């Protein structure tokens, strides 16, 4: 399998990349780690006329603040797993990134590339949604923050403009004591997810102060279930509470059937993963208190 012919350009700086995008944005694609784009080109599902290689730009960094984490767009998935600081501040990154493909692909695939690719069941878009995140969309006009719920429009579709590139991802973490959990099922280790759930629970004593639940596999974009999240505030998460939350979260989802699973099976997984993730996140939040 060989990709269609294209013109290859290497961006030397972010400004250079933005200038190339402004000039050719409509027919160009950015090449970061290439771990999703190149397979699509090999299969000729993607046929960009121009590739702008941004892979050598100095955009890999992890900065941890009191209530937020900033990940440079070219930070590789393996760095989310290997960073001791990130593991300490927000172990959910490592927990979710372990589900991304295989070790060799995780050495090259990037956080920004995954966000821009907007695969419906990809972990990085899921984390952005779960952690009320946003991306820095950079162009010659400056930097525009785009929140996750506006970024993801549909399968492999974002609201980025043709002249914009993602230069960083921002994730918000709770201020108090919190715990998180990320669960996923794939047919094979590292394969595309059938369904996944992420949960974050912040608690004071035995009571939940905030809860966030994110579902992958419910729709063509990551889904947050605000009504269920709100129903958990002020109470303790027991197995019966978590079971009901899972059932409520999944019941509202239309889900989709495809070669991997039926919509019914996806709803079943989402309900069960939500139950387990909430119990786990609640317990972890207690352990850090």
């Amino acid at each position, binding site marked *: 399998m060989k990709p269609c012919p*294209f013109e*290859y350009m290497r961006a030397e700086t972010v400004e250079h990349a933005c200038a190339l995008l402004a000039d050719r944005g409509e027919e160009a694609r950015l*090449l970061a780690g*290439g771990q999703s784009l190149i397979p699509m080109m*090999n299969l000729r599902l993607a046929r960009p006329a121009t590739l702008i290689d941004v892979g050598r730009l100095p955009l890999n960094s992890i900065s941890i603040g009191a209530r937020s984490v900033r990940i440079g767009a070219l930070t590789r998935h393996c760095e989310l797993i290997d960073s001791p600081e990130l593991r300490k501040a927000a172990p959910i990154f490592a927990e979710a990134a372990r589900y991304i*493909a295989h*070790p*060799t692909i995780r050495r090259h695939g990037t956080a920004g590339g995954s966000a821009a690719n907007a695969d419906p069941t990809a972990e990085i878009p899921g984390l952005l949604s779960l952690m009320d995140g946003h991306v820095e969309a950079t162009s010659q006009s400056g930097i525009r923050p785009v929140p996750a719920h506006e970024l993801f429009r549909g399968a492999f579709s974002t609201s980025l403009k043709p002249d914009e590139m993602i230069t960083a991802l921002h994730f918000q973490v709770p201020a108090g004591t919190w715990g998180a959990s990320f669960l996923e099922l794939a047919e094979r*280790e590292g394969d595309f997810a059938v369904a996944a759930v992420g949960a974050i629970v912040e608690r004071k004593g035995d009571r939940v102060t905030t809860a966030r639940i994110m579902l992958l596999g419910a729709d063509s974009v990551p889904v947050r279930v605000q009504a269920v999240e709100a129903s958990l505030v002020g109470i303790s998460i027991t197995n019966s509470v978590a079971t009901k939350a899972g059932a409520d979260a999944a019941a509202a989802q239309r889900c989709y059937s495809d070669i991997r699973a039926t919509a019914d099976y996806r709803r079943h997984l989402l309900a069960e993963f939500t139950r387990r993730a909430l119990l786990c996140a609640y317990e972890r939040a207690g352990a850090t208190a």
Partner: protein
Amino acid sequence: MKAVTLTVNGVSKTLTVEPRRLLADVLRHDFGCYGVHFGCSHGACGCCTVHVNGEPRLSCLAFAAQCDGMDIVTIEGMAAGDTLHPLQQAFIAEHGLQCGYCTPGFIMALAPFIERADEPTDEEIRQAMSGNICRCTGYHSIVASVRRAIAARKEGADA
């Protein structure tokens, strides 16, 4: 067309390549490294794994043009003279291969793992090789090969 300089197993060449040519394709056709095997061409099988600047990388998921100036090692560059790499020796000893098509990819993907891992569980070994598919062995003998290579490294370090 794009001018690209690659150093492959210690030999540097500057080539003029079409941008769409995959690294695996250039390694096979322009450097004669036929141990670089195409399996699936979309990152599912791991057969084409090589080392780029010291790190395992799927050569079907990289364009040669992207790798300009980089240092590449293929399975052909793993032996030190007549002495096979410890993993190559272990694969022979433990019957870690049958048809051999996937073997270069396994060895290139696992080479950094055996340098790092001391007493891995089977689960950790299987996780480390989860990006590589073998249709012959059923993987048990590959896990045994990895264990043997790690043991050999540790013995060498003790000696």
